[in-house]
């Protein structure tokens, strides 16, 4: 019973949504179920936040390796949550000055806005920017013409990389019109529009067929892994 009812619900809702695509009177059901999903997704944040906090507290309590990072994560999470929920530093909305909490949580100058603007943005940008160093170090070590396949990859990467620069475009712009297909820009476009596109389409069609078969397994109750181990 513990497994049968969830399987029946999943199966019923799944098939209902498939049919709603083909039977116009049922179209509205799709919208309704979508709204239910969006509401459930909001609750998932509560679960996710609770789980995150539980794990960090456990790590700190048991003094596991890296517990200091867990403490920072937990404190940062709680601080952001508190300033956001209680709208710290947010003035009341212009239209309703009598309601203290009527302002927008992200209003400029508020504590949440300050956290986002001066902590989150610089941290996220810094994390991403460090990639430049890894890429510059890894690229010239990885792209080696060790064999025919590697040479092909190297040649393609160099052309696409050059095509992403203004320098690359200028390098071959002097070629006559009859040889315009050999310009770096044209070669880059050809690689992306032709070779990349047909390979990507093949992969996408493969993935789509995989999704259809996996979904059917779930809807028919053959695959029950989403229900957990017990």
């Amino acid at each position: 019973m513990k497994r049968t009812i969830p399987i029946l619900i999943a199966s019923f809702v799944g098939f209902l949504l498939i049919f709603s695509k083909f039977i116009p009177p049922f179209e509205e059901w799709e919208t309704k179920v979508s709204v239910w999903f969006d509401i459930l997704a909001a609750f998932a944040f509560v679960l996710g936040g609770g789980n995150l906090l539980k794990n960090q507290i456990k790590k700190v309590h048991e003094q596991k390796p890296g517990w200091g990072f867990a403490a920072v994560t937990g404190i940062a999470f709680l601080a952001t949550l508190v300033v956001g929920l209680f709208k710290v530093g947010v003035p009341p909305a212009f239209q309703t000055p009598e309601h203290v909490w009527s302002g927008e949580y992200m209003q400029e100058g508020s504590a949440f806005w300050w956290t986002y603007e001066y902590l989150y943005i610089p941290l996220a940008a810094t994390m991403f920017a460090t990639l430049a160093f890894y890429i510059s170090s890894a690229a010239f070590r990885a792209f080696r013409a060790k064999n025919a396949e590697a040479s092909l990859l190297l040649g393609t990467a160099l052309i696409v990389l050059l095509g992403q620069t203004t320098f690359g475009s200028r390098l071959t712009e002097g070629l006559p019109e009859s040889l315009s297909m050999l310009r770096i820009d044209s070669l880059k476009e050809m690689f992306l529009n032709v070779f990349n596109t047909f390979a990507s389409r093949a992969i996408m069609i493969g993935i789509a067929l995989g999704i259809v078969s996996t979904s059917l397994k779930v809807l028919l109750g053959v695959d029950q892994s989403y229900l957990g181990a017990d």
Partner: protein
Amino acid sequence: MSVPEKQLDRRWLFALTILVVGLPLLLRLESTQREVSQMVTNVYEAIDNLPEGSLVLLPFDYDPSAEGELQPMADVFVRHCAERKHKLIFLTIWPQGVGMIQRATNLLQQEYPEYRYGIDFVNLGYRPGYEVVINTVINDLPSLYDADQVGTPVRQIPLMRGVENIRNIPLIINVSSGDPGLKQWIQYAATPYESINIVAGTTGVQASTLYPYIPHQMIGMLPSLKSAAEYEQRLLKKYPHIGERESVTNTAQLRMMSQDAAHVMLIAFIVISNLIFLLRRRGERAV
């Protein structure tokens, strides 16, 4: 000729990377594009050819980590739409996208003071649910976005009157840095409903996976900072008064110079390391 086995200290490489990326930005060097690619032209014309004052949906599905590459695209799209006096509806399916929309609305308020909130543009903010949000707003927008970012009921916002879903919005301009994002807007909105046209700005990393959708499911996209620089240049050429403003209006071209320098450095390193590798291998074979 044999080349001695010696590893380059990585710190030299990192120091050079800082210089190459940082100097053009500090010196405010601008990268000038000679040609505008067909893809950029298609995106530009999709916005420019819309009748003045058309309704445009702008989902900004990216976060600060991709801001370096995507903010210039978002800025040029917003400026172009404002020059054409289009009515703008902002929303995001990324929680971090709220701040990115705030940048766009700040730009509108600073550079286009005549743009009035609720009449010419509106910020619907974020709703959880990822791609299902797209699936919902296609059929019934107010059921999910019953209020805007500041809590004003959408029924009271003049711009939103009559907007029951996004099927009749002639153009979606998506700025996206990953999943869910552009792929989902194409799959759930632009593909099933022919009335919905979509153009986009996206990171170079995910651009290659999106080429298969052009031109039937998506009009075009700015697949890299270079495209954004081309777009910006074309926009500034047509509307030169944008460049006369106090705010920096050529961000894409400024950042492109830094990217140009970094890419040329990478290419040089790849070529040099391969030459050394080949010389070493030849030396080993000769022994």
